[in-house]
């Protein structure tokens, strides 16, 4: 797997899209910090962007890479390499290069503006961890969609639909059910519903760490009582990890059985 990962990663790192992605984050980081010079305010704005954009990029890039590297995959399939290693290697190549763009693109400006000396360093680290998880999760989901759809257009369609569902529609349904069942106690429901969607979970995790969590009032206090504890934090990490591992297991299962 290491070798496949190496070549995928190498291939991607040299591609135009990685540079565009990296320079987007660089520009974003610098502009944000140039505009208000406040690291913790920067973290809030970044969160808004990261929880929407990272999944979108992960989904699109993942599907795109899968389809574009069809030849590479075929070449590899005839080589003495384990099948699952071919796909996992490619997956980690994509997810790795995307994560690297994210970490470098945001890390460099924030470092230059004195991140290590500020108290935003933990919030920022959490933001990056969440960003990396979202990349891993949505790239894995994208690979799953792509491996099941040989038709490129269909695959892209499903991938965008998936993103749309997770980023927007899910919250719409969530909101509707909260309003419909407002007479019932909703704390547990909303906590579970939040934990089930990696985007919502990431948003909540970061929000609760920031000052802005006071706006969440009583609901926020309930959430904080769970997510704010060590246990809650590691539970959330576990959920994110499951969101990463389960699609990967499915990817391996599908890859082992697919004809090329």
């Amino acid at each position, binding site marked *: 797997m290491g070798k496949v990962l190496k070549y995928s990663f190498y291939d991607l790192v040299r591609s135009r899209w990685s540079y565009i992605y990296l320079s987007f984050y660089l520009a974003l980081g610098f502009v944000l910090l140039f505009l208000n010079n406040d690291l913790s305010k920067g973290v809030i704005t970044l969160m808004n962007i990261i929880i*929407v954009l990272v999944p979108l990029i992960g989904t699109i890039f993942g599907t795109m890479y899968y389809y574009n590297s069809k030849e590479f995959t075929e070449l590899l399939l005839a080589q003495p390499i384990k099948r699952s290693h071919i796909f996992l290697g490619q997956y980690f190549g994509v997810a790795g290069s995307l994560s690297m763009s994210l970490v470098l693109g945001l890390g460099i400006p924030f470092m230059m503006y004195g991140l290590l000396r500020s108290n935003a360093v933990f919030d920022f680290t959490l933001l990056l961890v969440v960003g990396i998880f979202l990349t891993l999760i949505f790239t894995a989901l994208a690979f799953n969609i792509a491996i099941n759809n040989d038709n490129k257009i269909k695959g892209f369609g499903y991938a965008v639909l998936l993103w749309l569902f997770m980023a927007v529609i899910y*919250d719409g349904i969530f909101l509707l059910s909260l309003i419909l069942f407002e007479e019932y106690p909703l*704390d547990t429901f909303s906590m579970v519903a939040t934990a089930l969607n990696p985007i919502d979970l990431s*948003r909540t995790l970061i929000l609760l760490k920031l000052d802005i969590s*006071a*706006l969440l009032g009583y*609901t*926020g*206090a309930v959430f904080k009582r769970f997510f704010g504890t060590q246990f809650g934090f590691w539970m959330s990490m576990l959920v994110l990890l499951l969101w990463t591992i389960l699609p990967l297991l499915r990817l391996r299962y599908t890859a082992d059985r697919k004809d090329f």
Partner: protein
Amino acid sequence: MVRVSSILACLLFLFFGEAIAETVTICPSCPIKSIKEGISTAQAYDTVLVKKGTYYEHDIVVDKPLTLKGENYPIIDGQKKGEIIKITSDHVTIDGLFVINVGVSYTTDFAAIRVIKSEHFTIQNVVLEKLFFGIYLEKSSHGKVYHNKIIGDAKDEYNSGNGIQLWYSHYVEVSHNHVQGTRDGIYLEFSDNITITKNTSTKNLRYGLHFMFSDNDVYTENVFEGNGAGVAVMFSRNIDMFNNTFKKNWGPSAYGLLLKEINDAKIRNNTFTENTVAISIEGSNRITYKDNDFIKNGWAIRVIGACYTNSFTGNNFMHNSFDVSYNSKLNDNEFRSNYWSNYSGYDLDKDGIGDVPYRPVKLFSYIANRTPETIILLRSLFMDIIDFSEKVSPVFTPDNLKDAQPLMKKRL
């Protein structure tokens, strides 16, 4: 002739009255070593001068018109045994003492300095630490609480007291005090015609300033920072609130100013910065909000329950997460000529007034008011989208809740 002689007698009395007032000096090495002894020795209108030193005394009763004055802040240590100074006479002045270790009780409100049914008192330049209640005015009017420093270390509401408390006391001037770390910094109950000026009230557990059933009071130029909540005005009428600063009252249930069941108040030229809720309004009517600054608050104005005939004019609403939140469609409150930093309209005729009205209520804040749990969707893409669509064509938010003449530039 009779009249002239009586005037003369008065003048004489005034002249000699001043002249005959004596000073009783107390110090650890003096003949009079305790304050209690000093007070009992002193005649009315004498000055009891307490020199530097530590005096372990409590239940000191000042029962005649006296000036109890400290030199270089002598320490009066109540050793947590109960109340420390009790004033039961008119015309008493307490000045320059350092009072510590007030007793804590769950049944009696022990205070560092208590004034009971007395008038014309002055309490000034006093420093209070390790206290339960600080300065407690009980049915005492026409006095002054000036330039005191009250530093509490309250941890829980149930076993802490208020910094300055007024109960059935009228016409009192509370100014230039610094109160921190108590339950309520300054608390007024059934106290009318009180003037509260230039005080600083910070880091108090509950409220910086708290009005209950108190009418015709004025508070100006005070700073309320980092309290559980800045100021709570409840069940009171005709309160004037001018030029105060409400800052960083931040937390899940914190706010800068809470108005509950109050009528006919004027709120002008105040600055609300970085509060979770700048003003929370419940059942309050005929209130004018004019020329206030709302900067970087979670909610600038949060209205719960029916509020009628309030007017909001000339205020600056800048960079608040929500400008106005409202939980019903009913509204006869007026928003006019405010500056809204979220306003994205235009001004074609260049008269400084936006040509399209501004609707300060976001759909999300409307929903979150109805179903508080939905707030967990704060800053989600979905909410941004529906907020935008609501802004373009309002369906749910009150149609007439709008500022028809939004200012293009902020009021300076």
